[in-house]
């Protein structure tokens, strides 16, 4: 599965200048990740959220828009025709996208046009940047950076600038208030988030996501017992959640809650609290620019769920699904010019179920918990999360010394 070998098979590839070759080989994984992961996540995320909230509130949600496989003239109702596949409304996001594209691209008078147009791009780019270092499966990481988790947290913070830009450029007090709240909240919650992210880093002894995953595939000692020996670690016993036992359970709760706050989703949706600020920094946005904020939000939700799964729940490399699939006596699947490693398949399944579960939990929390007040948000962060995450860091350091 070497990309430069794959490209080398193209006739005439040798005549292309070397740096163009390098750029193409480097860009292809990035573009593939965008097309194959971010777009479906953004589209299906909106659909899942609407359906899930509908189920929770005893409604139906979007269940109509499907695919007509035959055109039989314009009609009033297509949904009862035999040539119309309803697909549980799965095509709704596409219809929404077409609607958003058709809307007027409105810039508020008196607003700052350049910044107004640039803001959604920066928010989306920040979310996209996280996918570069997100380990999706064996050999399916666009770049397994040496500073992996550090990079992920850094790029995730770029979104703040975009929101601040949006709030300022809208020339609207609600927008500005919303983005002020966003900045206060995100900057505060980055502290416990980074501190708790360091717990798995300490245990693995590396910032590289791949190393953190490999570390969780190994056995370890807990209070004098060897846990995860004889291949049991890849069934999920080696997860960081169970290492240094009670410490990382607290750490994952803090990390996940901070992720929720950084995503400004309920109960932390003060930046766009619609009962007070109309829609906060989104007030003046319409059409596809508004849609880009949402694509960015769902992409970031998925990325942060994936990071939580990787840091504490073994990532693609260990867990029940991975352990079960590794029992299958297949080593690799031949696919024309390349072969697909079986670990890649098992890893995708393992990563997907954990990430989707955490993704769904975010939705559950959004539709069950009421919004916090600003002072509650701040005291939760500084009075509870910061001291607890510092204690977690200290204790996992001790555990790492003891060989967990």
């Amino acid at each position, binding site marked *: 599965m070497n990309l*430069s070998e794959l490209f080398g098979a193209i006739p005439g590839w040798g005549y292309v*200048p*070397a*740096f163009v*070759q*390098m*750029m193409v080989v480097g860009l292809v994984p990035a573009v593939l990740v965008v097309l194959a992961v971010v777009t479906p996540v953004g589209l299906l995320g909106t659909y899942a959220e609407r359906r899930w909230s509908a189920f929770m509130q005893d409604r139906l949600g979007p269940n109509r828009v499907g695919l007509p496989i035959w055109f039989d003239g314009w009609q009033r109702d297509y949904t009862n025709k035999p040539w119309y596949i309803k697909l549980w409304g799965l095509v709704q996001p596409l219809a929404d996208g077409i609607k958003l594209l058709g809307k007027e691209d409105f810039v508020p008078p008196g607003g*700052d046009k*350049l*910044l107004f147009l640039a803001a959604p791009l*920066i928010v989306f780019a920040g979310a996209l940047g996280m996918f570069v270092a997100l380990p999706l499966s064996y050999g399916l990481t666009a770049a397994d*950076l*040496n*500073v992996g988790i*550090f*990079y992920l*947290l*850094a*790029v995730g*913070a*770029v979104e*703040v*600038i975009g929101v*601040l*830009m949006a709030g*300022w450029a809208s020339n609207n007090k609600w927008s*500005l208030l919303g983005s*002020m709240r966003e*900045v206060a909240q995100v*900057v505060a919650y*980055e502290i416990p988030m980074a501190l708790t992210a360091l717990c798995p880093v300490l245990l693995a002894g590396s*910032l590289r996501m791949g190393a953190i995953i490999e570390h969780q595939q190994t056995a370890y000692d807990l209070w004098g017992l060897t846990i995860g020996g004889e291949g049991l670690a890849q069934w999920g016993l080696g997860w960081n959640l169970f290492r240094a036992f009670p410490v990382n359970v607290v750490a994952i709760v803090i990390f996940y809650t901070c992720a929720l706050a950084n995503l400004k989703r309920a109960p932390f949706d003060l930046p766009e609290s619609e009962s007070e600020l109309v829609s906060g920094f989104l007030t003046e946005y319409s059409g596809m620019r508004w849609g880009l904020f949402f694509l960015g939000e769902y992409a970031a939700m998925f990325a942060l769920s994936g990071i939580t799964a990787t840091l504490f729940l073994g990532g693609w490399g260990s867990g029940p699904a991975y352990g079960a699939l590794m029992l299958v006596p297949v080593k690799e699947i031949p696919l024309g010019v390349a072969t697909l490693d079986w670990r890649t398949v098992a890893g995708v399944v393992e990563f997907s179920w954990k990430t989707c579960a955490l993704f769904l939990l975010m939705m559950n929390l959004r539709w069950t918990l009421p919004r916090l007040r600003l002072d509650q948000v701040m005291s939760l962060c500084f009075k509870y999360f910061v001291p607890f995450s510092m204690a977690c860091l200290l204790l996992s350091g001790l555990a790492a010394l003891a060989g967990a």
Partner: protein
Amino acid sequence: MGTGDGIGIQLAFFAFSALAVGSALLAATARKIVHSAFSLLATFFGVAGIYGVLGSDFMAVTQVVVYVGGILVLLVFGVLLTDRIPDEFRVAKPRNYLPAVVASGLTFLGLAWAITGTSWARLPHVLRTPAEAGPTTERIARSLLTDYLLPFEFSSILLLVVLVGAARVARGGTR
């Protein structure tokens, strides 16, 4: 990849340098002070990219964390929160061209003199290619906690003092 590697790295270096210099020029000449602040975003990313090209991955990410996530946010926050700026100051009018040109020119000349005057070959700990550097995180951590432990601890005490002082100032006269 042989020679292709060198060309690619040079290309990336010049692209990031152009980004950093161009946006820094924009920051210095933009009419609105908010534009200046936001164009620093591109400058910081350009500098981070140069660090990345030179093989210093930890520095690159630190640059983004510290400057984009911290300093830039504070800067913009400060500009937005200061509502009592009179309108004639909201529009940036550079007044001190001559001192600025002299100061930055002297800085440039000094840096150029220092860089060209140093005999790099005699400094064994300076690495000449990014590939030589390898992963930097571990080496930075090691030297911070061994050779440079005292300055490291001093800077953390300084930051702690600043934190306590900031909390004291922020609480004002309530206590």
